[in-house]
């Protein structure tokens, strides 16, 4: 029966919260995510009780099967149980979540954030990857670095269809719209890596549109940001210019297209194709050889490169640290 099942699953849920999965709303690492998770546990408790009451009534009916019942109108019972109870419960839930808790999960007002000079990141959604732009020149893709224990305002919008930016361990999600810039605040209690994923269906490779948020000590973050802001460490090869530069940029060189991710420091990233593959020389070769096999429907076409070309390109790209 469901109540019994709920109870047996409780320890499972608790287990899940403790086992360090990277994308779990039950493993909150920031004040807003904590607030939401706490609200969930309260609501789970109340709901389990509510379900138990109804199941209790039905089970009691089972035990008195065969005995004769009454046929009274019973309107008063229904008014008390069916109108008064929900009003009380709903008022409590509404005030707690939609008046108090919502303050912590809502983004700060736009101008207040800029005035404070807080760290901000601009995230642009693309089919099927994330463009990440910092103030200054730093542009990267599919990974966001933030200083730990510092509020970071993330401005999001979409370059094509609707996506949704979601890092469950840090905060609620926010949609990326093509005709509106939305905001959400990221804050991490602890240094570490947090997984995020597109939550609004966006086409063929919606399933492979992940990203990482790295929360680093402020000094580490500043060093990372300074390195990302620099132009590329090596000039593009002729092969890159002929095969890749119509879509990809390498800052400080002639390659300046913005269809696909900026590759200025691609070698420094931890994943390829929005968390489809971990980044390494071998994986880079695999990706370049047949992107449509790795991520069917991605906008990067198969380039029909020779093995030598794949190897040369991969080596060049991985050198861009």
């Amino acid at each position: 029966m469901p109540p019994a099942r709920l109870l047996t699953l409780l320890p499972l849920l608790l287990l899940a919260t403790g086992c360090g999965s990277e994308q779990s709303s039950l493993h909150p690492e920031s004040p807003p995510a904590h607030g939401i998770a706490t609200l969930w546990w309260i609501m789970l408790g109340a709901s389990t009780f509510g379900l138990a009451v109804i199941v209790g009534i039905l089970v009691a009916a089972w035990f008195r099967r065969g005995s004769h019942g009454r046929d009274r109108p019973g309107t008063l019972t229904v008014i008390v149980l069916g109108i008064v109870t929900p009003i009380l419960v709903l008022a409590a839930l509404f005030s707690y979540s939609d008046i108090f808790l919502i303050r912590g999960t809502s983004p700060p007002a736009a101008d207040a954030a800029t005035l404070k000079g807080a760290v901000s990141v601009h995230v642009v959604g693309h089919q099927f990857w994330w463009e990440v732009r910092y103030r200054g020149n730093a542009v990267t893709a599919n990974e966001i670095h933030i200083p730990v224990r510092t509020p970071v305002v993330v401005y999001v919008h979409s370059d094509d269809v609707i996506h949704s930016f979601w890092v469950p361990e840090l905060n609620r999600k926010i949609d990326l719209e093509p005709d509106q810039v939305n905001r959400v605040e990221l804050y991490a209690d602890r240094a570490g890596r947090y997984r995020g994923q597109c939550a609004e269906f966006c086409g063929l490779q919606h399933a492979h549109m992940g990203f990482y948020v790295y929360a680093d000590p402020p000094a580490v973050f500043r060093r990372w940001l300074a390195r990302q802001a620099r132009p590329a460490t090596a000039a593009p090869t002729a092969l890159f210019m002929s095969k890749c530069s119509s879509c990809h940029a390498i800052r400080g060189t002639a390659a300046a297209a913005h269809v696909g991710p900026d590759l200025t420091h691609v070698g420094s990233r931890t994943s390829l194709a929005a968390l489809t593959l971990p980044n390494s020389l071998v994986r880079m070769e695999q990706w370049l050889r047949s992107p449509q096999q790795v991520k069917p429907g991605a906008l990067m076409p198969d380039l029909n490169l020779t093995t030598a070309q794949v190897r040369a390109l991969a080596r060049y790209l991985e050198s861009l640290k």
Partner: protein
Amino acid sequence: MTTTVADRVERLERQWAERPGVLGWLTTTDHKRVGLLYFWATLVFFGAGGVEALTMRTQLIKPNNSLVGPETFNQLFTVHGMTMIFWFIIPMTTGAFGNYLTPLMVGARDMAFPRMNALSFWIFLASGIFLYIGLFGGFGPDAGWFDYTPLGSRLYDPARNADFYTLSLAFNGMASTLTSANLIVTILKLRAPGMSFNRIPLFCFAMLAASFGLLFALPSLSVDLLFLYLDRNLGFHFFDVAHGGSNFLWQHLFWFFGHPEVYILIVPAFGIATEIIPAFTRRKMLAFPLVAIAELLVVFIGFGVWAHHMFATGLPTTTLVFFAGATSMVVIPSTIQVFAWSMSIFTGTPKFKTPLLFIIGFIVMFVAGGLTGIMFLAIPFDQQMTDTYFVVAHFHYIIFGAAVFPIFGGMYYWFPKVTGKLYFERPGQISFWIIFIGTNLLFFPMHIVGLLGMPRRVYTYPGGLGWTSYNVLESVGGYITGLGILVLFANLVVSYFRGPPSGPDPWHGPTLEWTIPSPPPEYNFATIPTVTSAYANWTDDTPPSLELDVGHKQHVSSLVDGWTAEIADMPHSSPWPILLALALALLFTMLVIDRYMFASIFAVVIALTLLGWHSKEPQEHA
């Protein structure tokens, strides 16, 4: 006139006789035959939707599986959603149950507009075939059942997929509109003498609520679909952000339809529950008037909550709080009904036969799904869990638990009425338990994977995030559910051929359909009963009844108190409905392949068919 009962019945038999053979079915306007056609057709679509669901569950049984690719998977989940909502639940509840039972419950001989009724069935069938031609042709809709723009626009969906979406739904919407209008007029105007508002069975109140809901919600969807069609095919810019359009417009128009739609899906099922509960607890529904009002109110309030589907889109906080408040109000009529159902069972004399078991399963799953629904009015929690498997779990508890369970219960309950046979009780109960265990195993773990961060609508997922074992459970639950449904239908099929005869009233049911033979004769009621209670079959007094035995006649009642105001002629079987639906199907086919010249030709054919329809039909006098 001095005639014996046998004479009168013989005359009615002759006057209301249906044409024999296949032609009879193709041209029928008898609400019972139309209802059965709806029943068989929706079952085929239910099977298709089920196969789609099990294919998806098999794809998701392990991480990085490659049974189907993203292209197929996206079409599967889109068409699964569309099928279950528009080609299974709505036509099953309003089309099959509504058509078959409403005239029987209000004491009428047919639906108010019998030919329109047949038309709505043939349109419904054609629209479904249209959709599946798209799917099998590789052009199934693939942007989700709410087809958000810009993903559904020509730029991001360049093939025909989204055209099959817009046109099939617009086509299907016609059928629902016709059925709704028909149900409303039937319930309000064809009631038996004496059936004032407080004596209308709760099932009919539910049909009334769902029909009004459909009539007011569908225009919003139709406009949305028309705009998208124009955007995609004729260069309009309603949703084109680059040219001053708005992609929020699509969402508002869609959900203004889409949320009432949810209640439209489950309210008829509430109606089924409120018929089964009295029959198997031997008591009238607790708080009858409150329940009737709650059925109407749940749909009415449902029109004010649509933006809670958009809590993560970046709407202003004030808007969110308003819609969260409105959403909390819709909980109240639902709780009224939950307590009315469960307390009726508790205070009555319950006999736990298969139909009541399905209603109990329905109450448990509706409460579970309703409680997770309440959680979504907590805006921060909604913003955390929307578009994850938690939502998938929530709405399947509602749609499978609260709509499909009563449909199954209703199939068992009215099986003797429709076939004249009793079903086998033990296999019935076994089918209930398999389905109940299967669906909970299928949908409960979805809550957990959602909380663990699994988004919905992903064709695959990586291992190592703690999702795999729950997905295995879900898939196994899916197979068990499928097995249970097979047991259910096997039981009904065997019962149809081998079941003992049921007689007219095996349950001592409360409403008028149990006063007539099983299966009901073409004319339903030999004499039109006079009604003195909402539970007409439980009332002992035998007031005078109305004898209508000359010609093809139907009484028409006054609106409020339900006394006979006039007598109307009812049409016979007619070839025009199926011809008109065929012409419409050809028109839509031309629209989907951009042949506007041919489309206009078929528009003329439609006009001519309507002319034929409205030319006077010869009346057959006996």
